[in-house]
């Protein structure tokens, strides 16, 4: 454990190099604006900037993308509080009390508290990330290909079960992603698969095309043009935007509980920041002496979800860095960035690229601290930004997307593919298909296929090898329970509903 802190100190020094510092600052400011601008959230922001960022040096690129991620978490609260529109699903809980506070003339108190909560949540999340990541990675090194294959199947199942309201649709999304992952040359024998006679598909579909289409373009397609138009009572005076220090300090309990809940929920693949904010809000309300204040502009109602939101962002990174299994859309896009710069996330990353990992972790600390100052300074600008109309914003963002995607392989064919994935992403959003299982299926599919086929080649086709490892067996059993339980609960609930109906009729 002590070694982790020593390595972190070295990482902090490495992250203080001018190029990395500049990347953090640029990423944090862009993220802040992306979070504050209506219609774009952290996942869309990281996805849109992915093709541009990977054109730069590897460490700086990932530091910048990370900064966009947590910067957008800070900025997301601005739209949620001032406009009452969550820039991202994870800011939904902040709207409830944050927007009420703003409407009551306490926008500054809510914004100041959201900055403090974001910082504290982020810091606690980072400390826990530093403490746990190496330990989990070291434990995972003992995992062989069989255990890793089982773990991957478990994670994909968990993401599908927890990631959407409809398991059927989540599974369809997952299998569609696995299909996309098979496009291109077969990883073992080199046979082209599903290329539809198109040589440009031999290398498969570039990850950023899927990410930008599903998260970036689709998000803009679904945004109504009326968003961002200022209402009369959504205008604030500068004095109203100044933070309330005493009110912030009084929320210390919610800041602590939100941070811890956020981190541990964030670790679970598929649960994500949104679930973390909801649970932390419910916990804060249940343990509060004045639960009646929640929903009517309670400071605690802003503190708990904002701390959880930011802490969950770092909890999310544990399975991505330590196991190579991203648990959310944004970490999936970040993992895509790592793969694009030639790094394979997973337990071996801490052994082979230790300096890189700790520099990135160091950059997170620096970025998190810098964002407090940057957000306070930029709050008046950000509050204006929240009213930028899509007719002015989206042309520029779509042009960046087109040029960024073209820049990856100098190919217009890939720009055309983005358009298709944008439409698919829009349809999925409207029809309630979660996009995260698709992205994870696409990333993990080829790794999973290699794992399964190599294991079966080594065992001469004997499937029972997957059940001979006790760890793999336990993971597979948990996966089966996980996949079967929603159907069991559903059929039980429907049986109870049918049994209740005659009784209800009798009573009626």
């Amino acid at each position: 454990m002590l070694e982790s802190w020593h390595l972190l100190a070295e990482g902090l020094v490495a992250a203080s190099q001018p190029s990395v510092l500049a990347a953090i600052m640029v990423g944090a400011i862009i993220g802040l604006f992306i979070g504050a601008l209506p219609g774009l959230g952290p996942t869309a922001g990281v996805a849109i900037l992915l093709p541009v960022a990977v054109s730069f040096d590897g460490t700086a690129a990932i530091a910048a993308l990370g900064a966009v991620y947590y910067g957008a978490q800070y900025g997301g609260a601005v739209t949620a509080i001032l406009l009452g529109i969550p820039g991202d699903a994870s800011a939904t809980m902040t709207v409830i009390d944050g927007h009420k506070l703003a409407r009551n003339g306490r926008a500054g108190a809510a914004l100041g508290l959201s900055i403090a909560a974001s910082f504290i949540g982020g810091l606690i999340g980072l400390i826990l990330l530093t403490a746990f990541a190496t330990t989990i990675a070291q434990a995972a090194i003992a995992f062989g290909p069989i255990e890793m294959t089982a773990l991957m199947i478990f994670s994909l199942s968990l993401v599908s079960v927890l990631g959407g309201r409809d398991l059927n649709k989540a599974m369809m999304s997952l299998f569609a992603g696995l299909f996309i992952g098979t496009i291109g040359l077969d990883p073992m024998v080199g046979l082209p698969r599903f290329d539809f006679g198109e040589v440009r598909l031999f290398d498969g579909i570039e990850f950023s095309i899927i990410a930008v289409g599903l998260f970036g373009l689709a998000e803009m397609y679904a945004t109504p043009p009326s968003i961002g138009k200022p209402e009369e009572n959504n205008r604030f005076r500068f004095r109203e935007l100044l933070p309330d220090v005493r009110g912030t300090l009084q929320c210390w309990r919610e800041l602590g509980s939100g941070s811890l809940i956020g981190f541990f929920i964030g670790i679970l693949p598929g649960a994500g920041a949104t679930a973390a904010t909801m649970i932390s809000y419910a916990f804060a309300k249940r343990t509060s002496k004045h639960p009646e204040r929640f929903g009517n502009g309670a400071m605690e109602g802003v503190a708990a979800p904002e701390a959880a939101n930011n802490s969950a962002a770092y909890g999310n990174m544990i399975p991505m860095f330590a196991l190579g299994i991203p648990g959310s859309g944004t970490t999936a896009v970040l993992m895509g960035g790592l793969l694009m710069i030639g790094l394979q996330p997973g337990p071996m990353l801490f052994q082979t690229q230790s300096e890189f990992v700790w520099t990135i972790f160091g950059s997170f600390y620096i970025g998190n601290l810098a964002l407090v100052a940057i957000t306070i300074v930029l709050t008046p600008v950000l509050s204006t930004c929240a009213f930028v109309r899509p007719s002015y914003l989206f042309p520029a963002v779509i042009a960046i997307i087109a040029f960024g995607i073209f820049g990856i392989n100098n190919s217009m064919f890939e720009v055309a593919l983005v358009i298709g994935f944008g439409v698919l992403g829009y349809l999925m959003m409207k029809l309630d298909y979660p996009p995260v299982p698709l992205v994870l299926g696409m990333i993990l599919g080829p790794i999973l296929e290699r794992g399964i086929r190599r294991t079966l080649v080594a065992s001469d086709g004997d499937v029972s090898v997957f059940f001979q490892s006790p760890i793999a067996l336990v993971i597979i059993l948990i996966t089966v329970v996980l996949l079967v339980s929603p159907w069991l609960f559903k059929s039980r609930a429907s049986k109870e509903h049918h049994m209740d109906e005659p009784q209800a009729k009798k009573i009626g």
Partner: protein
Amino acid sequence: MIPLRSFDLGLSAIFGLLGLYMIWQGSGYGYQEGSVPSAGFFPVWIGAGLALFSALNFLKVIRQSDLLGSVERMEVVRVGLVSLALVGFVLLSQFMGMLVSSVPLMIAIGCIFGARAARSIAAVSAIAVGMAFILYLVFGVVLAIPLL
């Protein structure tokens, strides 16, 4: 308003057919060589999974017609128009170059997202020209990407 149910049925049907195509094509790649899996092994299983869950969803949507709401016709038109504008950009870039083509693309998108008055269109046009210059600096000069 367009009911989303028909879109859901359509998407399920497309995914279901894709699953069946994967099974057929995967079998063609070879499911097994001796006792070990071949190139078609994984696609066959994925295809089966995709076909199964798509069929289940298709049946569910058929049985429960009130599952999804509807979408405004204008929103669907907007998605179509933005996609068309981007396709136009892809085609125009071959002849006019990316930077020049990006200007009408941005103006078109601005108009699709609500810039109707002359003043708004003028503002979007100014943003488009300024943005084209920024794109040239970032992608053409800093990143040295050979733009079309």
